[in-house]
């Protein structure tokens, strides 16, 4: 027996164990959890023109995404994901967002502020405001209000003069997201009216400071301020798909799935040990490396772990084992045919390689197609499948070869077919 090889084997194991123990926590902490695990929500918007004749091209789309980004910054979500799909859809994913209700409101309003007269004629709109100058203030009675700054005080004087001339209907109606069919006269009769407020204009106002009072709560005033400061959306967005997951619900799903996965993986390990003995032990060691490398690559790609992703990871282990099984079965066959352990190991590895390559390459092709053509939910799954198939080559082929090779070459396994799960009575006598 050559002690050097066995020594190298243990040296590799110990060094790897040390490295793995150091990277475990960083990997776990940098895994990005999807909203089905963390809670949060996802909305798919269909983008439509705001005004007649407006074109939805890549420029309007990226402007819309920029405004959405600004609004999300207000919410303080750490890992938002905003993507343009199909050229005219925007998918917004906000994992871990605390106040889902507020987030939805902030995202969905166009935030198109307009000032109109009682006949709904447009007097001023968002383009007359100085950007980023909205503030929340309080009046004498400590009620919240929002202050704005206009670009041009002369224009405001002109508007107020016109409103004044319309007495007794001298009101300046302030609308948020005025839509077709909305009318001041219809809404004014209702107690819960759609416009923000309709202050009376009693003098010509030559100023660029405007206050909006509208029976706000502090939260409402803050929302309005945030919306005005992040700018109105250049387009109309209709929710066509949405999903929201409660934080507790997501956490429960993750715990259950990880628990089930852990038992499943343990079962694989035990099965391999029982069926392939020493070969199974080596396979189990390479599987541990496999899990670490897959997770590290996954984190490195900044991919988001979702529930199907966890399932794909666990499944991937089952499929990675396949490479070990193919090789170990071949080695067993060769031992049975009467070869020595060393030549059985060499022949088995050599014969198993093309099988594993072809089998994994076809799966990689399938996964790549899914990644290119699949929708976002399918994509996350395809990434995991793709990564796991590629890593399989590294661990289950080369890793297992290295570790098992050290033992085979040390001659410690010579004449011990039982260590591969082969009965002596099955070996062909030569």
């Amino acid at each position, binding site marked *: 027996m050559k002690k050097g090889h066995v020594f190298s084997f243990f040296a590799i194991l110990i060094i790897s164990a040390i490295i793995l123990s150091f990277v475990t926590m960083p990997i776990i902490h940098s895994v990005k959890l999807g909203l089905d695990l963390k809670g949060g929500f996802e909305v798919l918007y269909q983008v439509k023109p705001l005004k007649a004749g407006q074109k939805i091209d890549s420029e309007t789309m990226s402007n819309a995404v920029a405004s959405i980004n600004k609004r999300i910054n207000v919410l303080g979500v750490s890992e938002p994901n905003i993507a343009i799909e199909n050229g005219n859809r925007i998918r917004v994913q906000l994992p871990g967002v605390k106040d889902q209700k507020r987030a939805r409101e902030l995202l969905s309003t166009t935030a198109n502020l307009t000032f109109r007269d009682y006949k709904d004629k447009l007097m001023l709109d968002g383009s007359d405001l100085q950007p980023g100058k909205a503030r929340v203030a309080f009046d004498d009675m400590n009620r919240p209000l929002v202050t704005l700054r206009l670009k041009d005080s002369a224009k405001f004087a002109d508007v107020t003069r016109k409103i004044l001339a319309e007495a007794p209907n001298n009101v300046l109606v302030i609308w948020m997201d005025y839509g077709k069919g909305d009318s001041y006269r219809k809404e004014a009769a209702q107690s819960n009216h759609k416009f923000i407020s309709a202050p009376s204009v009693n003098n010509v106002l030559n100023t660029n400071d405007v206050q909006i009072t509208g029976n706000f709560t502090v939260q409402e005033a803050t929302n309005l301020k945030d919306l005005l400061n992040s700018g109105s959306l250049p387009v109309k967005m209709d929710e066509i798909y949405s*999903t929201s997951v409660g934080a507790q619900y997501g956490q429960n799903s993750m715990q259950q799935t990880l628990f089930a996965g852990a038992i499943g993986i343990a079962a694989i390990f035990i099965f391999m040990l029982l069926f392939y003995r020493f070969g199974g032990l080596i396979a189990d060691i390479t599987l541990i490396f496999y899990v670490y490398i897959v997770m590290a690559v996954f984190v490195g790609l900044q991919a988001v772990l979702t529930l199907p992703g966890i399932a794909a990871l666990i*499944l991937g282990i089952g499929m990675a084992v396949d490479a070990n099984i193919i090789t170990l079965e071949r080695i067993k066959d060769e031992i049975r045919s009467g070869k020595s352990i060393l030549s059985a190991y060499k022949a088995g590895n050599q014969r198993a390689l093309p099988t594993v390559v072809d089998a994994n390459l076809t799966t990689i092709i*399938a996964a790549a197609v899914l990644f290119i053509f699949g929708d976002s939910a399918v994509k996350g799954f395809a990434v995991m499948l793709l990564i796991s198939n590629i890593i399989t080559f590294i661990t289950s082929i080369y890793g297992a070869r290295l570790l098992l090779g050290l033992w085979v070459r040390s001659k410690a396994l010579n004449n011990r077919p039982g260590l591969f799960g082969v009965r002596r009575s099955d070996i062909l006598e030569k």
Partner: protein
Amino acid sequence: MKSNVNMDYKHYNRFYDHFDFIKFRNVFFTFSLVITLAGIISLSIFHLNLGIDFSSGTRVDLQADRPLNITQVTNTFKDLGYQPEQPVLSGNHRNIATVRINKELTHQEIAKVKSAIQSKYGIEPNVSTVSPQVGRDLAKNAFFAVIIASIFIIIYVWVRFEFLQGLTAVIALIHDAFFIISVFSLLHIEVNILFISAVLTIIGYSINDTIVTFDRVRENIKLSRKRLTTFEELGQIVNLSIRETLTRSINTVLTVLFPVIFLLIFGSESIRTFTIALFVGLICGVYSSVCIACPLWAVMKARYIAGRKKKRTVQTEG
């Protein structure tokens, strides 16, 4: 069994070492045809129980800190002013309910539903809404992805193996995908977006399995060192190759089934559809590789060889 190919280590007995897979090919083909027909009939009568991901409407998944009952959950939604379909209860303590409403709720309505349910059951629910357009697009994209993947697989197998093997591998793949869809239609299990991922996984797995067996067929043909001309010779090669790879096929499917079974028992409700589809598909995948793809290849290959021979004789006569 006598064979002229490499039988040097096939001298010991396993339970399947005398099983003639080729002899029973018509039993397998008939079985698969019957199942497929049953699936087509079931699909045309019962259709698929499409979740909102593929149709439209709203789904609420609610979890409670105590067991639920259907009337109680239905009433909660009626009090909110909605007409839900029959809620489905699940979870080990019957504490999870899935409710469908045939209407896309607006975000204001969702906020209202969420806070009402949270205050009543203690845990914030999941709410999803889908418009008809998105649901259609999803199904369409997945379908095209499968078609494109199939074409690439045929091309790859054609290059590495031969065209007929690529074709039978894809037939086995479509057989498996359709089998899962049939089972879901017959048992009326709700189909959601994860179902697509499951079907796609099975396609990947089925291909993997079929390729491993074909790989052995390719190797055994090379080792036999003679031109195979008759169906009997092809059948011998196929039988031998299946037997040689069967331990691997069974062990591999077992190792993949372990986590699937545990996910089925202990895993989250949200991926139940996914795991059921995988469970059914994995078993079907092994069956189709061994009992459909390989015998079917032998039949087609024998016909192809016979056809070419005939052509040649006709040519020499003419």
